């Protein structure tokens, strides 16, 4: 610039503002934008996968006709929990292009990242083993029936960290930025701090709202056929409880599925059947679960044994099958017969009695409401007709 000023040419004397300010400003603008792009592209892609996978339209239709998207947004990926990993750390054996024999990602393999607490290679293996032993797992030796029905890791852990981290503290974005800024006072590597911050705050609060949890669980558990082949009943009955009404209104700490099935001190990966002594909904553990001891909120702090032992979900298919057991033969189709067998094991006589009483009351009211409303409507219609008729008669009388 200085050079220009000393030896002015004809052009820039005529357009001093244009040449001295606008053009440098435009150049600087594009230069800095370029720097910005260069920085945001900083996530290491040593394997050069993004050479293809950066194109948003990349994908195909698989054999089943489902649309598969192979696009990777590297900026979002860099901010995710796995942002530091290489693609091939999880997607193993992808050396050929086009890729052949693509295996599903196994979360229990070692990641070649050091766990800072033990300085050993990090792995999700422990969690995966616990999970395979739980009700949802395939069993240690994959011996359980219908493995395709059982949720995989990614079924629940859809990688939500692809979303920008803002809002980890609920609605208060300001708080999140403020706290992060404090961390960055000492930890000057901005990208690293953001990642660690996201990692911690992510676990300080629940990731899914109550409504989302119910949606996630019911995405399988509402499927009657799928449940029946495991001898379970579909849980549309949860939505008959007052718990669901609280969730429906988005009440703070409203009881969703995991509030009772995975209370404080239990983990989602270890959900057990209710006759297991370690299950929170086992009759011996019910009081503790209902009063939610140790939780943020004491739901039923005064719960008595009688209250806690009662049925929470409304009576569903199993009790209905039991109530109609005399008529239904076990030799029906396989799924139904499994339900009946399970129902005979699980449904006690007192539960059957309760169900019968409740259905009787319900039936009585339905008939009674019908009768009363029908009678009233008839009566009032007759009254109305008679009044109108009297009025017509009077009019006729007056006319005469």
């Amino acid at each position, binding site marked *: 610039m200085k050079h220009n000023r000393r030896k002015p040419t004809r052009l820039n004397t005529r357009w001093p503002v244009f040449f001295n300010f606008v053009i440098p400003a435009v150049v600087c603008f594009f230069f800095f934008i370029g720097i910005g792009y260069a920085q945001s592209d900083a996530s290491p892609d040593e394997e050069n996968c993004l050479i293809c996978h950066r194109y948003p339209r990349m994908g195909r239709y698989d054999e089943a006709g489902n649309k598969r998207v192979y696009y990777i947004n590297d900026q979002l990926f860099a901010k995710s929990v796995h942002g530091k990993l290489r693609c091939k750390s999880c997607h193993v054996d992808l050396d050929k292009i086009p890729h052949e024999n693509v295996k599903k990602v196994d979360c229990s393999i070692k990641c070649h990242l050091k766990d800072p607490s033990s300085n050993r290679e990090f792995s999700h293996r422990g969690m995966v083993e616990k999970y395979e032993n739980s009700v949802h797992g395939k069993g240690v030796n994959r011996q359980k029936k219908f493995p395709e029905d059982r949720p995989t890791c990614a079924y629940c852990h859809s990688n939500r960290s692809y979303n920008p981290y803002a809002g980890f503290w609920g609605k208060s974005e300001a708080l999140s930025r403020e706290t992060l800024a404090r961390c960055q006072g000492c930890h000057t590597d901005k990208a690293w701090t953001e990642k660690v911050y996201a990692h911690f705050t992510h676990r300080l609060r629940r990731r899914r709202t109550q409504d989302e949890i119910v949606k996630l669980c019911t995405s399988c558990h509402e499927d009657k056929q799928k449940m029946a082949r495991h001898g379970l009943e579909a849980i549309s009955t949860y939505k008959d409880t007052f718990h669901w009404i609280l969730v429906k209104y988005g009440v703070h700490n409203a009881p969703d599925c995991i509030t009772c099935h995975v209370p404080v001190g239990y983990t989602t990966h270890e959900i057990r059947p209710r006759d297991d002594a370690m299950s929170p909904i086992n009759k011996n553990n019910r009081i503790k679960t209902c009063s939610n001891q140790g939780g943020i909120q004491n739901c039923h702090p005064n719960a008595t044994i009688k209250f806690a032992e009662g049925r929470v979900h409304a009576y569903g298919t199993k009790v209905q099958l039991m109530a109609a057991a005399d008529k239904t033969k076990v030799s029906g189709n396989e799924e139904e017969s499994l339900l009946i067998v399970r129902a005979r094991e699980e449904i006690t006589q007192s539960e059957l009695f309760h169900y019968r009483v*409740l259905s009787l009351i319900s039936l009585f009211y339905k008939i009674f409401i019908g009768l009363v409303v029908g009678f*009233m409507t008839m009566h009032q219609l007759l009254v109305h007709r008679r009044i109108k008729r009297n009025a017509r008669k009077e009019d006729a009388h007056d006319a005469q």
Partner: protein
Amino acid sequence: MPEKRTRMTHNEISMAMDDVDTPIVQDSPRRYFVRLNLSERIQHLIFVTCFIMLALTGVMVWLPEKTFHFLGSAKETVFLVRSLLHRIFATIMILVCIYHVYYLIFKAAGRRWFKDMMPKVKDINDFGGNMLYLIGFRDEPPEFDRFSYKHKLEYGALIAGMTLMSVSGIILWSEYFWDKFIVDIAALIHGMEAVLACLALMIWHLYEVHLRPHKFPVDNMWLTGVIDEAEMKEEYPLHYKKIMSDPELQKIYLREGSKGSGQKTDSINA
């Protein structure tokens, strides 16, 4: 009506309205008959307010979730206010009912109410007769006393419904104290009975006092407490005869001149 005055009182307006419907002979003073005294009207007013509020706050529990999407993040507050209001109005309603029992036992007017409200054989005959009249087999309706079978049915339903609703409501309020089975029954009854009460009220009571010809849009007896002679003769002829033949009853039920039930002023209608 005095033409000179620019403003009319509420009673005068309603009288003017009545005059259009039922022209009466001007030289005899107008006579009104008390149907509800002040205490009963106040009880009714509180009860109505509570009922409407309870129905509104109660039905929100059963509406599908999409209904409240427009509330957005205010949903939670609405829900908590809803539950609080439901309990407050329920308490007021129960207190009014307890007062009503006290009124029935310890007040002369209440004892009269209770005596007149007791079901009698005549009610069954009245019901049969009235049905025949409504269908058209008879030309005249039966002569009703102070409370007809309709009132008695409604009052009976109110007592039964109120008892069930209060008991089941209190059980639900103190749920942890009870066997879960009892809580389930209470919840079921509370919901079903609420549906029954609301439907019955809409069809039976709302028709009687709002939609019925001659009463549309509203029978203002619930505010004034009195009805005029023509209506009394038409709807409660037996009670009318009883009053006219008994000076003691006249003191209680008959008001002359003014439509206000409390005071006797003969000047307005001159």
